[in-house]
């Protein structure tokens, strides 16, 4: 009996505290931080998958996010169906990722990691240029997946689209986890990442696994882009900053680890949002790089330790 009363008072006090002018905005910052964080997490996972398979950083990852958003928007213009636009965008960008590996990275005769990384940087610039030629410099809208009506969560408001971002991210992360742990292809990819020579000896086509990792990362990036396009619009240059922040998130959490990518992304999103709200909005973009520097100085393997 006494526990119930205490619980009730605790709950009431908590709700009252939340509605205080000081604390009420905090919930809002929390929600927007989680949403952005989920997007960074998806991008970070993309970096992690390619790093695991090839030990290189694919700096074209950010452009996959942009391509996903813009392709979905263009498909939506032709066929006004959001599921088709989503799937179409993901499929097209996955193909771009697969092609990118095949045409830009596989033919390299002396595949030192630094060479390949610089090629991905060049690839990123190329893709951005092509996007500018196709879509121009304008921003394009994509309708929200289930409407614009804000939902009230105490003193804060959340859009259905925020819920979509969070929900789909959870689904994708769980699906990735299942893929890598339960399916044969997933296990083959992990095997190739641990020891490419041994994997080849047991009959795994290592080259195919590398290509697959690019396709998978591109798909994740595209998914992230289509999820936030209703909130942030699709523009040809949205990939650069998102890619860099996703990379920071991957390093912060621990490059190559699934949990690390998710943690790093969420942490970055929340840090950005709270800094923007509590200190100054001018520092928003600096947070990602500041955190990156701090992590590199103090704990370079990232929060979760990353891959061995």
């Amino acid at each position: 009996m006494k526990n119930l009363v205490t619980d009730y008072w605790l709950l009431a006090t908590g709700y009252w505290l939340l509605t205080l002018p000081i604390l009420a905005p905090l919930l809002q910052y929390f929600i927007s931080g989680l949403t952005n964080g989920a997007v960074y997490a998806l991008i970070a996972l993309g970096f992690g998958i390619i790093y695991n398979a090839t030990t290189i950083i694919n700096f074209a990852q950010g452009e996959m996010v942009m391509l996903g958003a813009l392709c979905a928007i263009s498909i939506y213009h032709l066929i006004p169906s959001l599921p088709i636009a989503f799937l179409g965008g993901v499929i097209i960008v996955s193909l771009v990722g697969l092609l990118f590996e095949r045409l830009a990275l596989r033919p390299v005769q002396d595949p030192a990691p630094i060479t390949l990384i610089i090629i991905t940087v060049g690839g990123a610039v190329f893709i951005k240029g092509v996007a500018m030629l196709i879509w121009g410099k304008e921003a394009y809208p994509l309708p929200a997946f289930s409407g614009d009506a804000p939902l009230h969560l105490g003193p804060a408001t959340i859009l259905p689209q925020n819920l979509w971002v969070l929900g789909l991210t959870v689904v994708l992360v769980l699906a990735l986890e299942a893929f890598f742990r339960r399916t044969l292809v997933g296990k083959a990819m992990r095997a190739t990442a641990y020891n490419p020579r041994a994997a080849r000896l047991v009959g795994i086509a290592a080259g195919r696994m590398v290509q697959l990792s690019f396709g998978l990362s591109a798909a994740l990036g595209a998914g992230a882009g289509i999820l936030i396009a209703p909130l942030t619009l699709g523009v040809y240059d949205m990939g650069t900053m998102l890619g860099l922040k996703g990379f920071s998130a991957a390093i912060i959490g621990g490059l190559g680890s699934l949990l690390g990518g998710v943690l790093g992304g969420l942490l970055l999103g929340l840090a950005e949002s709270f800094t923007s709200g509590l200190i100054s909005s001018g520092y928003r973009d600096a947070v990602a790089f500041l955190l990156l520097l701090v992590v590199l100085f103090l704990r370079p393997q990232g929060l979760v330790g990353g891959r061995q």
Partner: protein
Amino acid sequence: MKKIGLTLFLAGLALALGCGSGSKSEPYLIGGIFSITGPASYLGEPERNSMEMVAEEINAKGGINGHPLKLVIYDDEGDVTKARLHAEKLLQKDKALAIIGPSITPASMTVLEVTQKAKMPLISCAAAAGITAPAKDRFWTFKTAQTDEMAVARIYQYCQKHGIAKVAILTVSSAFGVAGKVQLLAQAPKFGMEVVGQEVFADKDTDMTPQLTKLRGTPAQAVICWGVGPAPALVAKNMKQLGFTIPLIQSHGAASKKFIELAAEAGEGIIMPAGKLVIYTQLSDSDPQKAVCREYAEKYKAKFKVAESSFGGYAYDAERMLNQVLAKAGNDQAKIRAELEGTKNFVGVSGVFNMSPEDHNGLTPEAFVMVKIHNGEFTLID
């Protein structure tokens, strides 16, 4: 033999020179500096298009008093240094008679240093009042774009009329936003306004909910957003998401169909000052600007297959004004300047210009009308 050859050569030379100078078909060379690419390309591209359109039209009619108009247009890419280099080039290499542009304020401020010293007329298409003020330091500088000073005055007039006394301002961190913020703060006491909250966002920001959450906690009766591009549309969407009940007032930088497209449902009810071009169909037939706006809109759409923009209108007005002046002044730069200064009652897309020695912009706050977005269209409300 040699002597005959030399004589023939000299004769030919004299003939050629004689044909060259004093000929009626000597072109008038006008320079243009616009931000055709880069972050301000939504200004520079329509401005370049409009200037070329006017020149083509007048050349098709035989030029100005028989002299064809030759345009040399450079792209400053939104970069102040490049703008200055282009100005030097137009001055020394191309020997332009006058320059139209640049598109943005920082570039205009540096280019006018070059043109003032060289005594070359400059008609800028940028917003800041400081481009043509103080008048005694801007003898050779004019501008056709309405100033941010006028936009703020119109907004505050509207607020006064509708009982809004406390406002929160959300401005972009670029030069446009900084200049706007200066005006918003400076003119507030004059209209009895109190600025109860000020926040800043960056050009490329995609989430303004932190700034708006802070402003939601202030006693503001309206939010004034000062920016261009996609960000102001995102501000509108964020405000709807956060459940704001107070009105959103945008700057004239949002007065384009693209803004309505990007803001979608969140655009409903947004108010802003705009040049008459966006609502020219709703003007009364007795308004002299209606015909000019219609002509510009129809010609621009027919030629470039995209919607007309008020920004292109600045260059359209500048080139037409210059053509009118060239017809009277010829290629004498001092006369061109004097005629520009004496322009009275010039009906343009951006307003009706009445230049004077003290005012090289020639517009009043009435060059702006207040419009509201209703059902996805701009409607005239003041």
